[in-house]
């Protein structure tokens, strides 16, 4: 029923998460050696709960081991109560016979006395016949059938006797306190005389005809008290194991969910503690997949495997122990047969892993191709490349069908093979047991017990195999999670003195700044020196790759410089806390970053104590107020897929956000390059408003926007090659003039 869960909550490669990111099978995944230790440490606070769950699982398993044994006790008890009580029947017949003999002897004496009186030698033969019949019945009484048959002729004699003789012979007898009347005896004798004992059914039916007194003695009785006792114990067992498994499941679910939650929160918090450079090497999709897929896989596999594995191991060793203590040879037979099957299954499983990996990679490749083809649909159509794309698709699809077929087939074999192994072990135990029993080495009870043990022995094998597999994927997922959680964080800065943003004048000095991206040996910024006075507008221009954005990132301390210094009001930024540096700058970037939330939330963002008045003032300043009021819920409209904001409007939002944040300095990094020029004109006013009185750093490739800058720094390949005002630079006729004029060269 593990599948029941998964079928409701899809997961695995094709579940949620980025499409095509699922080329990870259970096999071939990397598991770090330290993962288990880390996981153990991580889950430490849940260990008591897990221990309780494991005890529950263990006790539950022991109950399972005992339960069916008791069920077979019930069967035995019932079986014992089916066969008619032949001993009693024998007793009855014996008693009757003895009674007849005694009566006959008494009669003979009477007759002898009477003969002596009357001189008639009649009846002696009769008495002899009677005693012969009685003796016969008694001698063969151990087997009612034979006894009845052999007694029949003599009973015929009895029947032919005159009624009063019979009455005299068949007087009441008492067996075990039950009085069997003469009439009853008569009936008993009648039944036996008419019985064909070769027909068991008829014999049984005949037993039902027995006179009540005899029947009450002979009729089989099931020991209902015993059965009730066992049954009630079993009910108690069942209730106990129900409670135990529910408790165990409940604990494990709760624990794994809580671990999942705290892991997700830790990963999310970690994102904000890692240096920016980390994200250049790890794609977004990868981190997202750790938060969702890997944490889910980890939780799911753990909750599935830990309890099951434990019960399986207990069951396995429990049954092995009970087998060994019962009989060595039989154990050998049972274990041998099961292991034979198990080896077969492991072989198939190992084989199928290969195909599963192939299926996953074929699926990944095909998903990638589908994604590429669908997103590039218009290009494919425009270039008549459908045939080519189609051929590629068909090849990949064929591959997936092929690999999928093999993987599916092999995984479909698991259950039937397990069933077969179970049956095979069963038969092996019966045959070997039968042989031993015929030799007289063991009793039947041993065989019956082994029939159950062998079931318990084979059953956990597949569970252990699956559990180990689940642990493997948990390990691989855990490795990825911990790898991320243990990545190197930014240096701790709590020792540095905190600085307030208030009263900052905004003088920024770059002093021989040098910077190289980690993992590269080519410096991006070679030797950058510049001086911005409070309130100045500084523009940075230059071709792509010149290092403009890098400079801004260094100023914000998103990256740490390798050499030189950046000073704000004379204080090196390296001696400030990162958050204090951040607190000095408003930043508007080319990527207009908005999140799903209301307009107001997006504008206020993380600021506290911002009044509606301030929000509206900022929006009026950027020319957005009117538009926002026209939205269905005004400032409370939730921005999501349904609300269509133009690039320009998004940009206006981010500018308004920067205004509300109201920090002493400003950075605009290509803030208008996604906006068409007419919209830009409108935004420009808002930006000018924002720049007033603030030291501003502006990166733009539309040179028209920065013509009025106080200082233009022209960068090329990591260096400032020219600097000055627009007019100075044009007059110099250098790179800037070139760049500027190329816009309208004929």
């Amino acid at each position: 029923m593990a599948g029941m869960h998964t079928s409701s909550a899809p997961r695995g490669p094709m579940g949620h998460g980025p499409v095509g990111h699922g080329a990870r099978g259970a096999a071939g995944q990397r598991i770090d050696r330290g993962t288990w230790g880390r996981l153990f440490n991580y889950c430490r606070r849940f260990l008591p709960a897990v221990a309780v769950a494991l005890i529950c699982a263990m006790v539950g398993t022991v109950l399972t081991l005992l339960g069916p044994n008791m069920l077979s006790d019930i069967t035995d008890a019932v079986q014992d109560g089916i066969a008619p009580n032949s001993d009693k029947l024998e007793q009855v017949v014996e008693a009757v016979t003895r009674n007849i003999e005694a009566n006959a002897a008494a009669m003979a004496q009477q007759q002898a006395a009477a003969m002596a009186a009357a001189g008639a030698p009649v009846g002696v033969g009769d008495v002899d016949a009677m005693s012969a019949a009685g003796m016969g019945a008694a001698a063969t009484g151990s087997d009612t059938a034979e006894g009845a048959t052999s007694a029949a002729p003599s009973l015929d004699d009895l029947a032919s006797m005159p009624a009063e003789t019979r009455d005299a012979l068949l007087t009441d007898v008492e067996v075990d306190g039950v009085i069997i009347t003469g009439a009853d005896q008569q009936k008993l004798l009648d039944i036996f005389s008419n019985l064909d004992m070769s027909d068991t059914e008829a014999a049984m039916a005949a037993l039902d005809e027995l006179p009540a007194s005899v029947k009450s003695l002979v009729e089989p009785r099931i020991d209902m008290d015993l059965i009730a006792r066992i049954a009630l114990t079993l009910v108690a067992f069942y209730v106990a194991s129900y409670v135990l498994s529910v408790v165990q499941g409940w604990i494990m679910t709760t624990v794994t969910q809580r671990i999942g939650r705290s892991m997700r929160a830790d990963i999310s918090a970690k994102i904000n503690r890692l240096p920016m450079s980390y994200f250049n090497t790890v794609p977004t999709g990868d981190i997202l997949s750790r938060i969702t897929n890997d944490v889910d896989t980890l939780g799911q596999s753990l909750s599935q495997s830990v309890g099951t594995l434990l019960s399986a191991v207990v069951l396995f060793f429990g049954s092995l122990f009970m087998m060994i203590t019962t009989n060595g040879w039989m154990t050998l037979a049972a274990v041998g047969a099961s292991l034979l099957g198990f080896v077969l299954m492991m072989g198939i499983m190992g084989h199928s892993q290969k195909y599963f990996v192939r299926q996953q990679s074929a699926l990944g490749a095909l998903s990638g191709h589908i994604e590429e083809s669908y997103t590039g649909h218009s290009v494919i159509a425009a270039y008549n490349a459908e045939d080519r794309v189609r051929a590629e698709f068909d090849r990949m699809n064929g591959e997936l069908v092929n690999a999928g077929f093999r993987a599916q087939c092999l995984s479909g074999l698991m259950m039937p093979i397990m069933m077969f192994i179970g049956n095979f072990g069963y038969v092996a135990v019966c045959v070997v047991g039968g042989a031993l029993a015929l030799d007289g080495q063991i009793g039947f009870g041993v065989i019956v017990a082994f029939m159950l043990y062998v079931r318990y022995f084979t059953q956990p094998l597949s569970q252990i195999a699956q559990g180990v597999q689940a642990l493997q994927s948990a390990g691989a997922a855990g490795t990825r999670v911990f790898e991320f959680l243990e990545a190197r964080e930014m240096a701790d800065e709590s020792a540095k003195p905190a600085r307030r943003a208030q009263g900052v004048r905004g003088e920024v000095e770059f002093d021989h700044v040098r910077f190289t991206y980690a993992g590269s040996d080519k410096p991006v910024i070679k030797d950058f020196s510049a001086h911005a006075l409070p309130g100045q507008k500084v523009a940075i221009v230059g071709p792509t790759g010149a290092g403009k954005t890098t400079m801004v990132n260094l100023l914000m301390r998103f990256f740490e410089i390798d050499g030189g210094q950046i000073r704000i009001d004379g204080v090196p930024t390296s001696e400030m806390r990162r958050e204090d540096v951040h607190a000095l700058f408003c930043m508007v970037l080319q990527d207009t970053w908005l999140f799903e939330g209301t307009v107001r939330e997006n504008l206020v963002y993380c600021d506290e104590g911002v009044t509606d008045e301030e929000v509206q003032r900022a929006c009026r300043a950027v020319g957005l107020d009117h538009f926002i009021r026209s939205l269905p819920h005004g400032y409370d409209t939730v921005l999501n897929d349904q609300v269509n904001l133009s690039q320009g409007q998004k940009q206006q939002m981010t500018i308004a956000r920067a205004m509300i944040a109201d920090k002493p300095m400003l950075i605009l990094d290509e803030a208008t390059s996604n906006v068409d020029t007419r919209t830009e004109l409108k935004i420009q006013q808002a930006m000018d408003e924002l720049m007033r009185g603030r030291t501003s750093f502006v990166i733009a490739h539309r040179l028209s926007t920065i013509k009025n800058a106080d200082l233009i720094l022209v960068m090329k390949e990591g260096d400032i090659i020219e600097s000055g005002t627009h007019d100075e630079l044009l007059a110099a006729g250098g790179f800037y003039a070139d760049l500027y004029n190329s816009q309208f060269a004929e």
Partner: protein
Amino acid sequence: MLKLFRNLTKQERGLAVLALAFIVTQVWLDLKSPEYMAEITRLVQVEGSTMPQILTAGGKMLSCSLGSLLASVATAVCASRIATGFGGTMRAKLFGKVQSFSMEEIGRFSTPSLITRSTNDVMQIQMLIVMGLQMLIKAPITAVWAITKIAGKRWEWTAATAVSIVALLAVVAVCLAVATPRFRRMQRLTDDLNRVSRENLSGLSVVRAYNAEGYQQHRFDTVNDTLTNNQLVGNRTMVFLMPTIQATMSGLSLAIYWIGAVLINSSAMANKISLFSDMMVFSQYAIQVVMAFMMLVMIFMILPRAQVAADRINEVLETETTIKDGTREEGEPGRVGEIEFRDVTFRYPDAEGSMLRHVSFTAHRGETVAFIGSTGSGKSTVINLIPRFYDATWGKVLVDGVDVRDYSVRALRNKIGYVSQKATLFGGTVSTNVAYGDNGRGPVGEEDVADAIETAQASEFVEKMEGAYHAQVAQGGANLSGGQRQRLSIARAVARKPEILIFDDSFSALDYKTDRVLRDALEREFANTTRIIVAQRIGTIRDADRIVVLDEGRVVGQGTHEELMHDCETYRQIALSQLSEEELM
């Protein structure tokens, strides 16, 4: 769902019948083997059995389970073959269908949704077939067969079985009623979690610049808690399921024995033995019946999900593309590279307003016609009508004097070299990307590729790449910068040597200098090719033969730069926003 299964091939249908036969065999053998099992048990327990007797019974049981094994292997092979084959067919059908779609249909479904439908949804169906063949069919057969085996025995046992099935189903129903809506909600909550994390990652610099780490974490914690609580309730409910099934089965066995004991005890001698064997048989088969019902429940759990997937697939397959193929292969004789819009109005399906209104213009061979206007003015829409990504709602678009709707799509597109706004590259090499597609005149040679790359001003960086023209290009061109991608996609259009080149804002990622040089090269090499250019920069288009100014879907000005500067207010505004007045004159 059934509609979908009509797509099964004859071979797959045959296999399905075969699988059915195997399943029936398997059920028969599975129900047979308890009889032999009971016989072995009896033989072993009864004194006086001989070794050959045990061996015979054991052999029979082994053959039964071996047969059952073989039958299930055969079923698994059939089911896998059908499922994977059918999955492949469905994917191929979907892929073909999506390829035939125009932008309109793609826009209606959205690309991510189409991707999910072609992959995940098909997988769902594939899973259903495998599970379905092995359970949906097996369960009722087993149930019915097992019921016939125990039918007509004592009603007390039947009643016990019925009660336990009803009780079990009730518990399952309650569990599912509680858990299913939560599992259904889970996808959305996971999406939320993903979204918040994605937002944090994509806005990393904003988050840090605003010192908003705490705020961000708070947002994450909110969705994280919602997700966890939802999962907790759902999973905790499901915790009851397995033990309940277990308890029901054990309870039922016990009940059958207990009831049996009472029945036997009170029955006549003649019936005791047969009652006992009935009891043994009943306990075996009653479990089978319960199991069969459980299998059915599981089917009913995956069925709705598969149904949704099937509906989503059908929705795509049943959508007819709005672009109907024409028959003409050639334009009017003697007319080459001509484009004419005759009073074209275009409205997106279901939209209220028109995107383009009464647009008319003509481009002759070798001319450069440029479109300018603010975002949303309809520039790209005009361009999309030429290669028939969309069809005009009213009016006519003519290429070489023939309505584009009369051409075969292939012939029409062979006349055109189109460069999209977003530079789309494909996994492969530089060379395969430039020589992409089919221009109806055979493959593009190495030399043409090199020429095109030269024209597109891409030689410099291409030659620096490892392997130069055969350098690897990652899927989507992820290993190239925006400007590099754009230049390669221009090279791709140029390599086709088309009659008409269309540039949809394709120069925006280039710096002014490269932009300039590239346009000069095009002017030189493609003097006879009609060029349609959409641009934002005045500099890019100011020397075009004709500039069409669009505003809210209307043509508000048409002419050369000088003419427009003189008499088109919108154009002047755009121009002035970019360059100062004296520079423009």
